[in-house]
């Protein structure tokens, strides 16, 4: 296949900067700015609480807080605090998708602040701890090591029995 079809135009640095909004676990992509949970409380109350509940629990929309220690129970509660492995992902997601009604509307400072507040509600940062491009990646998430990969499947092996096949349930009953 020819290497070059001559289709497409060069993307300028400015163009890339405008769309390059992802934040990685290393903190790469975090912008200038900072915020503390204290700063974030007001933002949370005015722009998030209506949907996620004043404490990030019991809202009409996904629960953000609590559930630590429940993952191995019959009723696991997966929240930012109990399940998310990286605090950087919280910044990334809040900036790109929240508040639901006006995504990508929060400034860096606002995003750092409300990110801090959600972490604070989960007891993961202090109220006045400033999160910024340097510190956010260092926040230790409880479920940091809760994920396994690569994909271990196939993890079940059934046989193609054709006649007089015995059901597992019967096997167990024996």
């Amino acid at each position, binding site marked *: *296949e020819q*290497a070059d*079809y001559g*289709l*497409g*135009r*060069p*993307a300028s640095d400015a*163009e*890339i900067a405008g*769309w*390059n*909004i*992802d934040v*990685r*676990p290393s903190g790469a992509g975090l912008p200038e700015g900072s915020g503390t949970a204290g700063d974030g409380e007001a933002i949370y109350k005015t722009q998030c609480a209506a949907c996620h509940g004043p404490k990030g629990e019991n809202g*009409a*929309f996904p629960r953000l807080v609590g559930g630590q220690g429940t*993952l*191995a129970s*019959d009723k*696991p509660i*997966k929240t*930012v605090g109990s*399940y*998310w*492995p*990286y605090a*950087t*992902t919280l910044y*990334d*997601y809040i900036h*790109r*998708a929240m508040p*639901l009604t006006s*995504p*990508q509307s929060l400034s860096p400072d606002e995003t750092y602040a409300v990110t801090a507040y959600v972490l604070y509600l989960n007891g993961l940062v202090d109220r006045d701890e400033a999160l910024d491009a340097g510190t956010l990646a260092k926040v230790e998430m409880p479920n940091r090591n*809760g*994920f*396994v*990969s*690569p*994909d*271990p*499947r*196939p*993890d*079940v*092996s*059934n*046989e*193609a*029995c*054709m*006649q*007089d*096949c015995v*059901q*597992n*349930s019967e096997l167990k009953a024996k």
Partner: protein
Amino acid sequence: VPFLAGRGLAAENKAGNQAPKVPEWMRSQGEPILSPAYGVPSKFERDVVRTPTDLTTTKTSSWSFTPLQDLEGSITPNGLVFERHHGGVPAIDPEQHELMLHGLVDKPLIFDMAQLKRFPQVSIKRFLECSGNTLTEWKEPTGKTVQDTHGLLSCCEWTGVPLATLLREARVKDKAEWILAEGADASALTRSIPMDKALDDALVVYAQNGEALRPEQGYPLRLLLPGFEGNMQVKWLRRLEVGDAPFMTREETSKYTDLMPNGQARQFTFLMDAKSVITAPSGGQSLPDKGFYEIRGLAWSGRGRIKRVDVSVDGGRNWQQAELDGPVQPKCLTRFRLPWRWKGDSALLQSRAIDETGYVQPTHEQLVDVRGTNYVYHLNAIQTWEVSSQGEISNVHV
């Protein structure tokens, strides 16, 4: 009319238009051509629609099911392809939409739609399944119809440009290992794509069953990763960033990770394992009388071609090999059929798929034994439809 008298048929006077009478629709001119210019289904088919989940609070982050019980063959008509959105369906002007390709490349590029369509093109028939398909069935039988239990599943002929072609155009650097794909919707949804898949059969597509993608399926541009879970096949594709490690987005950490009984969660479980389901007779339908029926269903695997499908009418005690509609294509819905004579006693209908890797579709019990019931995703267990002695069909676990 449904294949089976599932929905009450008004016993209105039908004699008016039947032999020996000349039906009314033969006694005057019908509708002219172009009624309308882009055709729509008959009004008598208005019941054949997508139906919504009742598990979400907002309709813009939600999903709707394909009416598999009303479909034949292995192509899903565009208007009935299932939906799963996180920020609603954006109305994107194709003349303004662009795709940005940057990161670990020598030549970061921006493509517009006309340029993307000029690249060498591939048209290929592949299934699309949400990894949350059948998630309501982990704990106990919940969905009434096959639309409820398996409707996050469709199959189209997709057309687009190989992702590998675009990557070569941008001169990807050696240490590239993962690509972030980002959508231009209100959730700006992102997933990390492994480079080997990107260079294998990944496509950047703009057409679905011959025409432009539909808004709900990503118009004007989306990613297609044959055999991978639907969420990764980013809709409304606007950006591809080449990187050296997974980006650990919300959709591949908080969501689309599979919680095991021990509290650990499996991550990057991309592939949709071999799965099958009987679509007729199926839940909510009823057999009008004893006699001949052709058991029909669909089978598919993210790991390649379906090799064989067996069908049981006694809940898995005895099986018969079903016939497959050819040509069987990899990572594609494959229709299977088995002639059956119902004698009026209760029955337990099951289908079991085997793909070209030799993997055999497991029972519900086998999966739960290993994965528990909070796994959420990737439920590909054998589905059982019970036929009562009255011919009523319902969703059961055996």
